[in-house]
Structures are given as C-alpha cells and as structure tokens.
C-alpha cells in the first residue's frame, strides 16, 4: 500500500499572510479588510514572519531551499475565494526534496510552500432550505503546505506521521495544539496500480479513518477481481466513508501564472543563517542514542522540553539511572506545579537534593517532600508557629515517641523514623543534615 499526503497547517502568526488583519477573528467577518476581501485596487504585502516560519519548516524537514522564490495565482471559481484565485507557490516552493522520520522509517517530503486560506462556507437552515454563508475571517490565513512522497504504507503510519510532524512543528514555530483536530489534508492512496485521491479531510483521526475505509474498499475491489478507477473522492465525516467527488468540483487546470504584485524573495541567506532549535522528537532520538529507552525518552520530551532539560542537567551529576528515576518520578509527579517556577535557583536546588540522596545526606522521602514543597504543595503556615524552632520540634517529637528512644539504644537507624517526622512537620524548612544532627544529639541525651 502506498500513501502520500498533502498537509495544510496554519502558521501561528498574529496577522494574515498578505494583510494586517488579525488571525484571531471570532465574530464572522470581523477580521477582514479590502485586501483579504479582494477589493478592486487592493493588493497583497507579504507577512515576513510567515515567510520565516515557512522557511524554518522547510529547513527543518531537510529540504533543499530555493534561493529565490515567488508566488503564483491558482485560479478557480469558488464562492469562498474572494478573488477567485488563491495566492500560492507553484514553480518555486520554499523547499523541495526533504524527509521526515516516523517510527524509524524515512518518509520523503516533495515540497513545502506557503499559501493563503480561502474563506469558510457555513450552511445553515433546514435541509431543502439551506443557505450558504461565507465567513471571510479565514481568508488570507497563512498556511504551509507539506507534500509527502507516497512513502507511507498504512493508515496507521499516516496518522503517526501527522502526530509526530505536528509535535515537531508545535515546538519549531508554535503551531496550535488544536491542529490535531483542524489540520487539513488530501491523501493519495493506492492498494494496487491506480491511485485514488481523497480531498479535504479535516483532523488526524479522519485522515486515518478515510484511509482505512479507502484501503478496505480498494482491497475488496481487487479481491473481487475488479479494477480500481483513478479518481478523486471526498471523505464523508459522518459516515466515515469516501464518495466519488463530482468532476467539476476539483478542476485540475488552475492556469497558474506568477503573482506580479508581490515580487521575488531571496530566502537562501535567510535559511542558511537560521539556527533551528532541537525539536522534541529529535531530542528523544538523541537521548535514545545516548542510552535511554525509546519510550522513556519520548515520554520525557512530550511531558515537557524543560523536564528533559532537567534530566540532562541531572545526568552528569547523578548518573543516567538516578536522573531517569527522579525525572520520571518526583519531577513528573509535580510537573504541573513546578513548570512555572523553574528558575535557575530552583533547578540547582533540585539537583543538589538529588545529589544529596545519592550521597546519603538526604533521605529519599525527604527529597520528595522538598521537591513537592518547591512545587508549592502542602506548605501550611501554621506548622512553623506550632513547632517553633528546630530544637523544640525535635524535643517534642522525641517526647512523644519514647519507644524510639528505647530502640535507638540498640539500633541507631531507629532515629530515621523521627527524622522523617521532623522533616514532615517542618515542611522542608530544615535541611536534613541539621535535623539528623540535632535528632542524634537529642536522642544521645536521653539514652
């Protein structure tokens, strides 16, 4: 089975691709202007930020970057398209010939280019009396289109590809997490000789569903000794099936010509100067190469890249094993709260704690409590007032536990129970070293 995808992802710019309108318009037709409505006499100006994002995606996908690019007009008539042509890139995409790895397989990327979104049609009213309304807030929203080679081999792999791609793009340019539901794709699939194109699928889940249905349909046709017709089909979201699209709906001849209003853009130097951040899955792959189990590495980077930072900070200081245990244990458990508070001092404090555990100066549970405290948990102001200073607290607890005093005479480890109690009541205010020292002193006095 061969599957190729054409994916449209919205770039998270504040303004549209060719005008200053907001990309966050809520009320229908509230974020529109003469440019994105195609008023006669208006003309586009390119949003530089969108160009940069597009170039960084092309570079990230390992594409060869075109030195100079321009835009084209793709002409077709449709009610949601204000100018009845879409400004896109045809001869000179940002990049060609890249690749992206999923599940250890390399998937070819044919091209990456920028284009504007059309408006959106909403059909309202009862069946038979439907009215189509057009919302132009989306008109001119910047999209990056990524076209893959037909290298994917199953609907599951196609979905995994999209999941991983979006994880990386989220980190790279900040595409929205909602994109898993809103990403739009066209999918080519061939089980036998002829390929079928499924147009306009929205959301990851539907890409997989559409492809599954189509794979089954084509396999059954072949099993029944029938031929598969090369055609364009549409995905029916409600039924989860694909249907032949009407011929005229997807006109193949778009009569591309250059878009003279925008001129040309030299992006080669920009691409070369760009330093891309390490993306989550690329980092997971590196951590895996460095010896971390694949699932662990993936879990870590998907929880947060900052958590992975913490892990990599701990590694050289406490060793991979302890770093893994603490990162996936106490740090992950408190991550939601910790995330906002992780300044350098806090990170250093955590590292010191874990080192302390390693060297035996801090108990395991104590370190966990301290980490929870750093996360802002369970800090009650009464505790210090009631407990007074450390010496008083130690004295009180020793008073309350005469049995420990008795044990201590023969077994010094019995002190650990009381040390733990002090740490708990102290809510992390006292260093374990101090507590242990004071506790020993107090117990020695009483034995």
């Amino acid at each position: 089975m061969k599957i190729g995808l054409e994916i449209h992802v919205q770039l998270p710019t504040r303004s549209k691709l060719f005008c200053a309108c907001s990309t966050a318009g809520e009320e229908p037709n509230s974020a529109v202007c003469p440019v994105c409505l195609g008023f006669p006499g208006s003309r586009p100006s390119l949003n530089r930020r969108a160009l940069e994002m597009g170039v960084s995606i092309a570079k990230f996908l390992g594409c060869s970057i075109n030195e100079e690019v321009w835009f084209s007009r793709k002409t077709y008539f449709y009610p949601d398209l204000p100018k009845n042509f879409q400004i896109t890139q045809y001869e000179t995409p940002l990049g060609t010939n890249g690749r992206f790895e999923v599940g250890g397989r390399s998937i070819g990327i044919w091209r990456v280019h920028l284009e504007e979104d059309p408006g959106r049609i909403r059909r309202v009213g009862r069946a038979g009396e439907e009215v189509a309304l057009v919302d132009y807030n989306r008109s001119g929203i910047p999209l990056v289109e990524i076209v893959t080679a037909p290298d994917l081999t199953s609907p599951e792999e196609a979905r995994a590809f999209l999941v991983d791609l979006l994880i990386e793009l989220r980190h790279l340019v900040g595409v929205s997490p909602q994109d898993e539901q809103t990403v739009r794709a066209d999918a080519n699939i061939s089980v036998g000789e002829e390929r079928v194109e499924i147009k306009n699928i929205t959301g990851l889940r539907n890409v997989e569903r559409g492809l599954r249905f189509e794979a089954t349909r084509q396999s059954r046709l072949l099993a029944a000794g029938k031929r598969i017709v090369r055609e364009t089909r549409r995905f029916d979201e409600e039924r989860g099936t694909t249907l032949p699209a009407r011929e005229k709906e997807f006109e193949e001849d778009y009569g591309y010509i250059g878009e003279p209003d925008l001129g040309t853009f030299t992006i080669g130097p920009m691409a070369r100067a760009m330093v891309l951040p390490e993306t989550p899955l690329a980092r997971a792959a590196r951590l895996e190469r460095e010896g971390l189990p694949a699932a662990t590495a993936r879990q870590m980077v998907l929880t947060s890249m900052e958590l992975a930072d913490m892990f990599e900070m701990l590694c050289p200081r406490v060793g991979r094993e302890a770093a893994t245990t603490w990162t996936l244990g106490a740090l992950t458990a408190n991550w939601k709260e910790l995330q906002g508070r992780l300044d350098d001092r806090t990170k250093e404090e955590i590292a010191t704690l874990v080192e302390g555990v390693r060297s035996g100066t801090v108990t395991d549970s104590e370190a966990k409590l301290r980490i929870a405290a750093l996360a802002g948990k369970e800090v009650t102001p009464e505790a210090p007032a009631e407990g007074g200073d450390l010496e008083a607290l130690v004295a009180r607890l020793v008073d309350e536990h005469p049995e420990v005093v008795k044990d201590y005479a023969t077994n010094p480890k019995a002190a650990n129970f009381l040390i733990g109690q002090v740490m708990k009541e102290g809510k992390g205010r006292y260093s374990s070293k101090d507590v242990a020292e004071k506790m020993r002193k107090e117990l020695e006095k009483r034995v």
Partner: protein
Amino acid sequence: MIANTLPEAVRRAAEEYGAFVERLEDPLAYEEGCAFHFSAKDNLCAVGFQARAGSRVLDGYRPPFDATAVERLRQAGGLLVGKTAMDEFGFGTFSTNSAHGVPRNPFDRERACGGSSGGAAAAAALLEGHLALGVSTGGSISCPAAFCGVVGLTPTYGRVSRWGLIDYGNSLDKVGLLSADPALIRQYLPIIAGPDPRDPTSQAQPPLDLGGEVGSVAVPEEALAGLSGEVRGSFDDALAALEGMGIEVRRVAMPSLRFALPAYYVLATSEASTNLARYCGMRFGDINEHTDQSFNDFFAQTRSRDFGREAKRRVLLGTFTRMVGFRDRYYTKALQVRQLVIREYARVFRDADVVLTPTMPFVAPRLEEVGRMRPLEMYQADFLTVPPNLAGLPHISMPCGYPGGLPVGMQAVAPHWAEGRLLALADRWGAGFAYRRPEVRA
C-alpha cells in the same frame, strides 16, 4: 475651453465631450478653492466617487479608500473634479469599449480620443491648468495623449504605487500623468512617485531624479514602417527640428520590437483573466436573482451579462494562454520575450539617451472608422506604444505636428527610472515647438 468657472468647464467637458463619467458637482467643494485641480481615470479608486473602470460589473461600487496617487495629490492641495472615461478595465485603444459612454476628441468631436485613458487626455486638453491621472498597461497614456494633443508621461513600472488601481495586468500597469502643460507634470510627478508599503513593487525604486539631459535620440527603423503619410511627415519634421536644436539623431535597428506586441497581449490577457475572476456576482457585480443555481452557473450569468465584448474576448484569450499544455508555449515564452525586449533597449541606450518614435501610426480616427476595425487591427495599432510598456520603461508622448489640424504625437523612451531625461526632452522640445489647444466653440 472658454468657460468662466472651473465647475462650468468640468460640466461641459463631461456633457459635451464625455471626458468625465462622474464629476464633482457640489458647488461648495469648488468654492473652497484649491492649489490645483485634477482628475482620475475611472480605474483609480477615490472616496466620494464610484470606481467602475468602464465596466457595468462595477456599477455602484464606491471604494472605501483612495488610490495612493489620488491620496497624495489631494494631500498636496489638489481638488479631484471627476473620474474620466476609459475602455472597460483598460481594454482598448480608442475608449470605445465602455459601458459609460465614449469620450470625444477635443480637436474633432467626430474622432476618437484614443485609449484607454481617453477621458483623461480629453480633460487635459479641455481644461486649463488641469492635471489628469492616467494609467498605462500597453500604451494607454501615450496613445490618447497623442490623439488629443497633450503631454502624457508614463513612469517606470514601480515608480508610482498601484495601490487603489483596479488591475488590468499587474506586471504592466503604471499610473502616470497627462496635461497640456508639461510643467504640471514636472511639478506633480514627485508628489505621486515614491515608495508605498501598500504596493510592494513600488518599494525598490531609486529616488526620483528630475535632472537629466538628452543629447541624442535613437530612431528604430522598425518603427517607421506602417505609418500614415501625415504621421511620417510630422515625425520627419520633428527629427529635423531636433537636429536643429543640436540633438543627435541616430538610426538604429531594434528587430525584437516586433515580438513585443504578441508577447504583450499574452501577458496582459493572462493577468487580466485572473484579475477579472473576482467579478462574479458574489461581492462585485450585481447579485442576480437566480440564486437557486449552482455557483458556476450563477457566476457565468453575472459575467455574461455585465462584461463587454472586449472584456470577454480578453478573458478567453488570457485563460487559453495559461492553460496546461499552452502555458509554456504562450505565457512562459512571452515572459522570455519581455527579457529580450528589455535587453534590446539596454543595448540601444548605450549609444543614445532616449529611443524616439511616433506614438501612434495614424492620427485620431473617426469613431465610425473605429467601429469598422477588427480586433486584430486595433491591437496592431499599439505596436509603437507596447514595447516600452512591456519593458517597464518610462516614456513620454508629446505633440509634434498638426497635419490637417489634428495632433500627431512622438514618444520618447528612457532607461528605467530616468524620468528626468524625458522631462528634460519635453522642456527642450516645448521651448521650440508651439503646442496648440483645441478650438472649442462656446
């Protein structure tokens, strides 16, 4: 024109000559006075007026913004007195392809003004001290300037912002100026020129330099074939006069010029056919009553009804030349020809300051003759004005003779961004040649 007041002169230019398709009528607006008065071709958007570009499909369209050129002239104290007649979207050589009437030549009301900025040239000829904003895609400033006996400057492509210009062919369209008085062009070109962030193609221009000298002109032999006797005579006289002024006249060969016309029509119609796609009854063009049809039929109905014959012809031509299977043969080839023509001019500019030809091969034809011309004959009439337009080179048309009382124009072409050279030539020429105004009867 003999008229006591500006509003009266504007009214007569509109009513008797059809120069304006819409004019400023509010007497108070005139009362306030102005530094100067100007008009805008009807494809330039201006708040307070419709912008119909000669097309029925834009009837009633009132743009919410000013074209940059209009805005800058207004800011300079100019009073916009009206929108001038033109061929639909600029598609024509005589201003006869319009839904809003045909302007008449101030030198002879039975003759055409030329096009497509015909109304602009007529207004420039009729109104004293008037500056007309015109637009040229393939010669639409030079041609009517020649036929109406005024000076018409078409700046370098990208010199004047096209923001607010209703597009014909975006890689060719240029906003320029027409006036009976070249001093007004010299004065107001710097106002409308200059970068404008709303038109990225205007951003890369060097500063406008109005200095410049012309010591030599190159006359391509190819331009002298197919001229009417009157035009040939006037042009030869003009060359002799220029030599008399100490300007060297060189005869040159420019064989590529003959490819310019077909290349121009391919590019212009390709771009036009995409520009006109938006007029489909959704937002522009009347929403027709038959909303129960498929959108394609609905669009086709509006477009069939509201586009004129020439607009339809150019949409069809332009759609054909960019179709899969033909695009390489026509559109892509035409792009290459454009480069060829640019290189040929560059070669000639090594030895001469400007290229000089007659503007049009004949004097303004009678309107009934225009009516009998076939489309191809009309297109061929542009063979002298198209090459500089295709190459994006600045050019100027100025009167150089009046055989039988009808103006003949000559057109000088300068290197990119060298508008100053053209104005210098116009100054020198104007100092030695007497421009005539039309005799307009009260």
